[in-house]
Every structure is written in structure tokens, then in C-alpha cells.
């Protein structure tokens, strides 16, 4: 009985504690109801470099535009995405909803149909230009240009290794850790490879897929397998620190993605390309503030500031990398270099003059749109999300993974 009494006393004490604690109320928010509010739906949280990239941009854009924002993390690609959108609108009164993962799209479209007065923006999606839902918009960036530039840095590093006698020109093989064998990844590694090839013509590349956007162990193992398979430089399109840390341990140079990994990999990190979503977030907020329509399918470019490279790590990068990148970047901007110029690559030994890609989403994955014009494969022209899915010569896929 004594024990019981003690227990009850403890509870009573807790109540008093709580009462003291609640004396200070800190909820001065929700006062300005007229203010614009943006709701963000993220697939994971800041541990994933992919989501962190969006989260940083959301914070930067909303603070710069002086609007309120609410975020929901760890929202799976299911009806939970729809529910999250409903919550953000009904509870937090959001005027714009943004979701960052491919699989969110259909659920977001459902929500867009239910709330026609709210604007819905979605990264990496493909359905906006055919869905016919006015308040639903897709956005992506021409990240293949950024990858191409990062590839140039990689090629420079290979050249340096060849000149230093560390490897012979025919041993210039890069490794690439990809998530899935989809257009988004294929477009990425192909542009990276073409960038490297533009400065180091003998380069070859091996690709391994992990079957997951975020799996640190698998990405690490894939990078290690590529290194032991003779790859002297690694890049990746997956979201964990697996590949960069494997490179740092093995002392193999790494071209990263989604942001700088120089803090964890001071000796091997060369440069990283990433999409900066701040310009798009500012654009969509501005449109809603002014009452203008948001573009159905928005593609960010180097010019809009959406495709950026991080600072070059001079400790790992070859001499003159910065100058060379600036030169190539200028040429990309003035149009004298096109990343997927068919003069620079072949498929099974043949130069392509015509190619139909699956641009409009349909159940049968029908190849519906001609994408090669005047000898150039125009990526991100017919819709913002990538559709380059050709296996070009010089790149060997060690495995495939469709998920």
C-alpha cells in the first residue's frame, strides 16, 4: 500500500511540473491568417541527401519570400501522401502543396482534384502535361547538364592519372552506382559519361544498381565491387553516403551528387552536381502571390540557377578543373555544346538519327514522341522529367534493377 501511495504521489508531482511548464505558452504563431503558407511533403527526412536538398531549398526560398511553411517528413508513396496533403490544407491552411517523390504523383493529383483552389507542385513527375488537372504542376531540372559538367571534372582527373603514369589510357574506367535502371538514372550516368569522354576519349564506365534510392550498405558494397573491378573513379546516383565513404576508405576519387560530401571525404571528393530547388520554389510562390498560373511542366536550367555545381575540392581535383568547367559551362549556355549530341555517342556501333521515347504516361509504356531533332537528342524538352533511356556504347551495365 505504501508503494502505491508513493506512485500516486509521483504522478501528482508530475502534474505540478507540467502546470509549471505550461505557464509559458509559446504559440504566437497562427496570428496572421492572410499570410501565404506552403506545405511540403517529403518522402524521407534530412538523413537522405535527396530530401535534404529539397528541405534546404524550401527553407531558403520561404525565408527569402517571407512566407510561412509547414513540412511533413517520412510520407510514403501511398494514400498517406493524399492524407498528408489534406492535413496540410485543412489543418495548416496551406495555399501551395509540394511533394518531392516520384510515387507521390498520382495521390497528389487526386488531392488536386479535391482542392481546385490550392496549387499542387510535384518534382520529378510525368503526368501533369497529360492529366488535364489545372492546379497540378510538374517540375524538374536539366540536371544532365550538371552531370555533364561533373563528368568533365572526372575526365580531367582521369587525364591527370594517365599523365602521372598511375594508369594507362586504356585502363581509364569509371564506376557508377545507380539506384534503378530508369530513364532518370540512365540519363544521369550517360551525361556524366559523355562529359568525361569529351576530355578523356578513351574512358569506359561500369554501372551497378542497388534497387533502392537510399541503402547505405548496398551503395557502399556496389562502390567497393566497382573499385575491385578496376574502376579508378566513382560517381553515384543514390542518396546515401555509402558510395562516397567507400571511396574515401579506398582512396578512390569520387564525383558526388545532391551536395558536397567534402566534410566526410576530404581526400577523394572532387565536385558534386545538384539541383537547387530554390528558384522553382520562389517561382511557384511568386506565381501564387501574383495570381498567375504556374507552368504545367517547368524545367530548371543552369540559367535559372537550378542546376549547380558545388565548390571544387582542389585537394582531389585535377589542376585547371575550375577553368575547364567554366569554359564548358559557357558553351552549354550559348548552345555550342549539346549534351546528347548524337555525333558523340553510338548505340551498338550505330549513330542514331531517330528515336521515340515514352514521354506521355500510359499503362503500356508506349514510345510516343520523336525526341531526336537535327542530330541532337533533346532531353527535358517534351516534358521536364528525363526520358533518355538508351544504353550507349562505352558503358557496361554490370547488372540491372527495376525495383
Amino acid at each position: 500500500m505504501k508503494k502505491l501511495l508513493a506512485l500516486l504521489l509521483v504522478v501528482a508531482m508530475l502534474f505540478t511540473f507540467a502546470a509549471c511548464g505550461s505557464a509559458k505558452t509559446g504559440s504566437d504563431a497562427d496570428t496572421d491568417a492572410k499570410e501565404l503558407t506552403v506545405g511540403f511533403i517529403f518522402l524521407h527526412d534530412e538523413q537522405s541527401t535527396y530530401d535534404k536538398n529539397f528541405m534546404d531549398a524550401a527553407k531558403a526560398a520561404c525565408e527569402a519570400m517571407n512566407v510561412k511553411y509547414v513540412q511533413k517528413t517520412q510520407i510514403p508513396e501511398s494514400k498517406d501522401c493524399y492524407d498528408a496533403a489534406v492535413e496540410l490544407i485543412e489543418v495548416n491552411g496551406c495555399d501551395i502543396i509540394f511533394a518531392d517523390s516520384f510515387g507521390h504523383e498520382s495521390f497528389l493529383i487526386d488531392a488536386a482534384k479535391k482542392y481546385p483552389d490550392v496549387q499542387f507542385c510535384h518534382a520529378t513527375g510525368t503526368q501533369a502535361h497529360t492529366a488535364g488537372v489545372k492546379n497540378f504542376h510538374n517540375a524538374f531540372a536539366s540536371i544532365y547538364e550538371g552531370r555533364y559538367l561533373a563528368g568533365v571534372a572526372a575526365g580531367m582527373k582521369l587525364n591527370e592519372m594517365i599523365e602521372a603514369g598511375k594508369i594507362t589510357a586504356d585502363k581509364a574506367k569509371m564506376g557508377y552506382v545507380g539506384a534503378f535502371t530508369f530513364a532518370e538514372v540512365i540519363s544521369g550516368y550517360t551525361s556524366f559519361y559523355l562529359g568525361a569522354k569529351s576530355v578523356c576519349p578513351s574512358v569506359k564506365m561500369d554501372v551497378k544498381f542497388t534497387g533502392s534510392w537510399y541503402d547505405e550498405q548496398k551503395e557502399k558494397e556496389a562502390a567497393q565491387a566497382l573499385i575491385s573491378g578496376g574502376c579508378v573513379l566513382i560517381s553515384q546516383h543514390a542518396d546515401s553516403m555509402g558510395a562516397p565513404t567507400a571511396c574515401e576508405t579506398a582512396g578512390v576519387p569520387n564525383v558526388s551528387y545532391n551536395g558536397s560530401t567534402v566534410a566526410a571525404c576530404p581526400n577523394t571528393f572532387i565536385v558534386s552536381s545538384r539541383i537547387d530547388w530554390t528558384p522553382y520554389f520562389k517561382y511557384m510562390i511568386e506565381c501564387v502571390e501574383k495570381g498567375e498560373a504556374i507552368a504545367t511542366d517547368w524545367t530548371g536550367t543552369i540559367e535559372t540557377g537550378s542546376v549547380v555545381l558545388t565548390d571544387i575540392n582542389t585537394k582531389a581535383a585535377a589542376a585547371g578543373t575550375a577553368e575547364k568547367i567554366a569554359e564548358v559551362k559557357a558553351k552549354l549556355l550559348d548552345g555550342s555544346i549539346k549534351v546528347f549530341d548524337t555525333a558523340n555517342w553510338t548505340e551498338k556501333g550505330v549513330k542514331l538519327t531517330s528515336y521515340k521515347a515514352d514521354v506521355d504516361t500510359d499503362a503500356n509504356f508506349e514510345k510516343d514522341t520523336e525526341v531526336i531533332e537535327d542530330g541532337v537528342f533533346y532531353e527535358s524538352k517534351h516534358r521536364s522529367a528525363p526520358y533518355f533511356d538508351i544504353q550507349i556504347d562505352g558503358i557496361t551495365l554490370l547488372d540491372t534493377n527495376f525495383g
Partner: protein
Amino acid sequence: MTNSATIKAHREPLFHVVKRDDMPAWKAWLIRAVTIVIAFFLVGFLSMAVTGESFSATYEIMFSGVFGRLFEGRFTMLWKYLQEIAILLALALALTPAFKMKFWNCGAEGQALMGGLASIICMIELGNKLPYPVLMAVIALTSILAGAVWGIIPAIFKAIFNTNETLFTLMMNYIATQIIAYYVYLKGGGSNVINPVSEGNFPALGGNDYFINILIVTVMTVVMYIYLKYSKQGYEISVVGESQNTARYIGINVKKVIIRTMLISGALCGVTGMLLVAGKDHSININSVGGQGFTAILISWLGQFNPFIMVIMTAIVIFLRIGVAKVADTALLNSSFSEIIVGIVILMLVGCEFFIHYSIKFRHNKKEGKA
């Protein structure tokens, strides 16, 4: 050398644990209630410490995360809360007969996924071909069957070869996950996502998408209570769980009971899969069940295998899961925060069960104890 061994044998440990059955029910329940209250305070204090918000503000955020603007007459969030409870509770209900029989079914995840797979296959392949009522009946039957098959395979092996059901059911989870992954690849093509199917969805009764799910699980709860408490089969389950030898001695066919119970357990998991696919997502992926098959084990235990107590436990766990996630999102914290909090609370509840069923006896300070 032998000397030290004899000395050790005489030495009494600092404390030892004794089982006790003498605690009156009201006292046990009081302890549980107090534990829950303390747990909620702990949650509040931890959130305060991490976010810097006040205690009441923390709970305000949690309430708004779970119930939304309930007091302004908006019920959207409440329905979502009930739906989350329904799914976790359905899995816990499905596991309960197996666990009561001391058959450690760790395969709710896989059994539910297989039920969901059956649903989505029917929705995609038969969606346009069958009239709606027939389609729904086919979805229900195939889902139940798929879950039951996935549950009965380990049961048969257990009954005949006495294989370890824990490992067996766990392995079946991985097989189910890979089958789903392959199906998603087949139907999702290059994008790894099956777009929601508009055929074969549960109707939105009263304008609410989740009404049918909640209704089905409510019925399941009542039926399971009656089944376990008042039916002959329910009695057989508890006897087999207490002692298989006793069961055999009083003429219960133990093998039959094991297989039959796992059939029910798997079938109910299959129903949950259907609720997830036809009643909620209208699509499927490997994370559709999202690890809830394992949380359900805890719910079943914490609920003492009593469906109505399980309702309360589920409500608490889901409240914390959604509420603390909201706190984390508001304070821009890592989402692991929610998992840590729910983990701590579950640990406290499990701990309190330990002290209800066992007592700790400390060594008495008797000087003559040492020879």
C-alpha cells in the same frame, strides 16, 4: 578449487525474481493506468527538452496533429486516426489467436502483403470485366485465401515436422516482399510505381473513404472477442497455449488446432491486406504494410490477448506515432524522434507487465548467510 565452488553455491545473489500470481486485478490495472499517465508525461517532458516548447504547447501540437481542427467540426483527421488504428488493430487481432496458442507468428507482414497482392491483381485484371458486387466478392475471397495460404504453410510444417515457426514465418515475409517487388516491376514498368487503380475500390460510405475499413475492423474486434472467450475453438486455443500435453490428454487434436488457428490468423492478415489495398492505397508496394506486422505483436501482448484492451493500446500507440511525428515536423526535428518516443512508451508498458507478473526479492542482510 572445489572450495570456491561450494562457497559460490552458498552465496545468495543480490536479488532474484519471483513469479507472483497474487496481485488483485484492480491493482494490476491501476499500475497500468499510472504507467500510461507517467509515460505521457515523459513524452511531454522529452518533447519539451528537445523542442523548447512548453508542455501544453507540445500537447497542443500533438492533438492538432492527430485530430486536426476537430473542435471546428472538421472530422478529416479523426477519420485518418481511426483508419490507422483500424489497420494496426486488424493485424493485432489477426495475430492474437496464434499468440494465445503460443505459436509465434511473426509473419503478419507477409500474410497481409499477400492478401494485398491478391486484391491488387483482382483490381487490375478483373476490374473492367466483372460487375462491382461480384468483383468485391472475388477480391475478398482471394485476399482471405492468399493470407490463409501464407499463414498455413508454416503451421503445417510446425504441426508435422515441428519446425521453428518464428524463423519460418519471418522468412515467408521476405518471400512475400520479393514477390510484391517483382509484381510492381511487372506492372509499374520503368517507374517502379503502380498508379492507383480506380476499379474495385471500397465505396466511400457517407463521403468517407475509410468508413468501411473501420466498420470491418470493428466487427472483427467483437467477433474475435466472442470467438476467443466463448467458443469451443477459443477454449482449445488457450489449452494448447497453456500446455500441449494437457491438450493432448483431454483429447484435443493439437495438430488440427495449430493448423486451424493459423488458417484464421493468416486469413485475417489477408483481410488487412485487402483493407490496405482496396480500402486505402488502391496500389501496392513493398512498404504497404510498413512494419506494422511487428508492432501488432506488441499490441497483442500488451492487450493481454483481449481485443477490447487492444483497442486502447492501439489508440495510444497510434496517437503517439502521429502526434510526436507532428511535433518533430513542427520543430523541424528528425523523424526518428517519433520512433524513439513510441519505443520508450512501449518499453515502459512492457516493463510494467514484468513488475505485475514478477516481484524482485532483494538479498536479506543476514550476516550468518556466509559460512
